[in-house]
């Protein structure tokens, strides 16, 4: 048992903390308040972060990245998220798919896609799973139901897949230069058995971007609609086997499992920010002639915020370690579920601390609460809980 960090981990943590403090935090609230959802991202920040290695951090050193381990990934995500949860996610969204590239792409594909990704500071990656009628079903495919799940149709035409359909709520849908797209390649079997992943560059003929979603929180991190009309994607861009999309990733910790850790680690950063805000406010705000901190109920709330946060930190680091050891368990998913409860309660308690101002709510405290509601859907709704719980009984 060893909870200490090695030198490399500490170095990345420090670097992330500095970048977060000096570059992200000063612009976070302003980006949050930009009304146009397509204008919230700050490309200068992305470029700066990219130059520091955050965008390409998980690509292996041999392949030109930094090859940081999962523990370091968790640390960096939390540090960045402490300044702005959505900005942190903008970087780590690139990691999610970097993991998949290294786990499942051929050398030829790596050559074709990794090189431009590494070279261009504004090259961000996107996924493409959710559709209008495949939300929960994408996460927990109903067994035996051939109608459920992804309906974006891909048909073989020579050495190309021809795509027709739409994707919704797609992370980086409006800005990514490369997508990892889930397409239905067999309608005669259930979704889980008839889906394939394709690498889709932004300049794919027949692909167009739809609207940008206007979210209540996580505004720096953009989501968009994707439209495919007879879009042609080379078969050479296919990842893994045809109809094998949902079988990839078994035996590794990429994709799903990274996504679980990612949300848990990011939430931890928000919790850290909330704890800091609450303590700072309680010490500086004077009521009845004394700092708020002197009140028992204020101390109890701040104690609870820290208690929940440190428990989450302990769990997140355990999960990250398990990933580094290629240990599979329900922990990643459970930690993700827990992060929902934790981040929402901690940010809510932070609002309560700020109640003592008696008037308008602090904008920073409000932002943390808005950002953390995203977890309900991504990490803590009943589908995300049943998906994990189901494994316990197995």
């Amino acid at each position: 048992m060893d909870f200490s960090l090695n030198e490399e981990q500490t170095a990345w943590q420090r670097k992330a903390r500095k970048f977060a403090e000096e570059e992200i935090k000063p612009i976070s609230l302003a980006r949050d308040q930009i009304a146009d959802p397509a204008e919230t991202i700050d490309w200068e920040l992305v470029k700066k972060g990219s130059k520091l290695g955050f965008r390409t951090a998980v690509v292996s050193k041999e392949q030109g990245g930094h090859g940081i381990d999962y523990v370091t990934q968790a640390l960096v995500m939390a540090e960045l998220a402490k300044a702005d949860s959505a900005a942190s996610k903008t970087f780590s969204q690139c990691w999610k798919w970097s993991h998949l590239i290294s786990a499942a792409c051929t050398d030829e594909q790596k050559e074709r896609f990794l090189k431009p990704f590494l070279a261009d500071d504004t090259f961000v990656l996107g996924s493409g799973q959710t559709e209008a009628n495949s939300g929960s079903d994408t996460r927990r495919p109903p067994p035996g139901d051939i109608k459920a799940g992804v309906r974006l149709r891909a048909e073989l035409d020579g050495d190309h897949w021809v795509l027709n359909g739409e994707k919704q709520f797609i992370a980086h849908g409006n800005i990514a230069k490369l997508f990892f797209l889930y397409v239905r390649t067999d309608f005669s079997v259930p979704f889980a058995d008839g889906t394939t992943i394709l690498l889709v560059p932004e300049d794919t003929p027949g692909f167009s971007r739809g609207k940008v979603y206007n979210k209540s929180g996580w505004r720096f991190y953009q989501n968009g609609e994707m439209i495919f009309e007879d879009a042609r994607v080379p078969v050479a861009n296919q990842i893994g086997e045809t109809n094998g999309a949902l079988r990839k990733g078994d035996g590794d910790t990429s994709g799903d499992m990274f996504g679980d850790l990612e949300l848990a680690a990011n939430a931890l950063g928000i919790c850290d920010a909330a704890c800091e805000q609450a303590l700072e406010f309680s010490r500086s705000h004077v009521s009845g002639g004394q700092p708020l901190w002197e009140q028992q109920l204020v101390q109890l709330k701040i104690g609870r915020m820290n208690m929940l946060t440190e428990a989450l930190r302990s769990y997140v680091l355990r999960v990250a370690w398990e990933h580094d050891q290629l240990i599979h368990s329900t922990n990643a998913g459970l930690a993700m579920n827990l992060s929902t409860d934790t981040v929402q309660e901690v940010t809510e308690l932070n609002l309560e601390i700020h109640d003592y101002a008696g008037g308008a709510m602090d904008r920073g405290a409000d932002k943390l609460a808005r950002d953390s509601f995203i977890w309900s859907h991504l990490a803590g709704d009943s589908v995300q809980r049943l998906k994990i719980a189901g494994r316990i009984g197995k």
Partner: protein
Amino acid sequence: MYDLHLSEEQLAIRDTVRDFVANEIAAIAIHPDRLEPFDPPLPVALIDKASELGLRTLALAEDRGGAGADTLTCCLVAEELAAGDVDVASVLAQTASLGGLLFGRLMSAEQRDRFLPAFLEDNGYHLALATREPTTDTALGINYHRPASEAPALETVAAAAPGGGWVVDGIKTRVANAPVAKLFAVSVATGSGSGLLLVPHDAPGLTVTEIDRDGGWYHGSCGEVTFTDCQVPAENLLSGDQSGDQADLSEISPINQAINLGVARAAYAAAVDYGKLRVQGGRPIIEHQAIGNKLAEVAISLDVSRSIIWQAAWACDNPQARADGSLSALPQSLVSQVASAEMLHRAAKDAAECFGAMGVMRDMPLQKYIHDTRMFLHSGNGNTDAKLAIAEALAGYR
């Protein structure tokens, strides 16, 4: 005699307002403009239409041109309006409550004669109570065991003008309805004590600055009011002690709680509709235990909240019910505030969760319901403060 039947009048007015909301408000309320939390425009036209229905003058006595509604009836109306649009409900509830209080109890006959006709005539005539000062520090909880301290002196001063009348100087902040009010009741320190002074919105020296919505965290309309050498006629001072009445109009009122209930109800209704419509896992999601259970919890929250809010509303109009033992001795409005605010915010969040990603989209109402119920949860000094006020009563400090 214990009886939970609403009167025929109450049921009728509820139906009327429900229809009005369905026909006039619903479509406008979900327009993306109105869902924008950062700076949604106040739907003045809707408020005026609701005024025409009599909802602005609801609590005025019938013989003074109103509907003579009691607090419970005001709650019924507020819930219905808020299920449509929380800002419409808030502006009207504030004017209606204040109208009942000012014209019904606080004004002299002379004052009433001067102000009532214009109030009745003009659908855009709103009222505001300006009591909070920028330096106000309620400070409940510090030295919880302290003896009750005196209220701090008001910094807004009404000085006797040499030529008669008052000259008012000072600032009032977070004044509900300030941007739309035509008449303010302003708490002022006078040479001989303190009191409420009636100040028309166009009095020279009175300026209103609307409080920015995003940072402001309020419903309806809210502003800061500055008085600089503001001249007010001598006969505009309200006489008598108004402290108890002011308490009735604080943010912790059952009517505000009913507005919160209306918001959560809208969230619930949307979730049930969607739950029956949206198919995942091969069937409507409401048919999944997990969603059904969640919606049941939300439904329970609404019922429980309504029950205690109505109890508090009735208690406002029936203060003797505590003395005779029909109700507990606790301050009922605080009880219902604490209990309902948390339940209703939770209800809105749970309802939104059923919508998946759409629950966070600004062009959908769910995120707004969350934000709105969150504001109610943190209104005033929040639940912590309300609980401490109850605790002080239990401990016998006051």
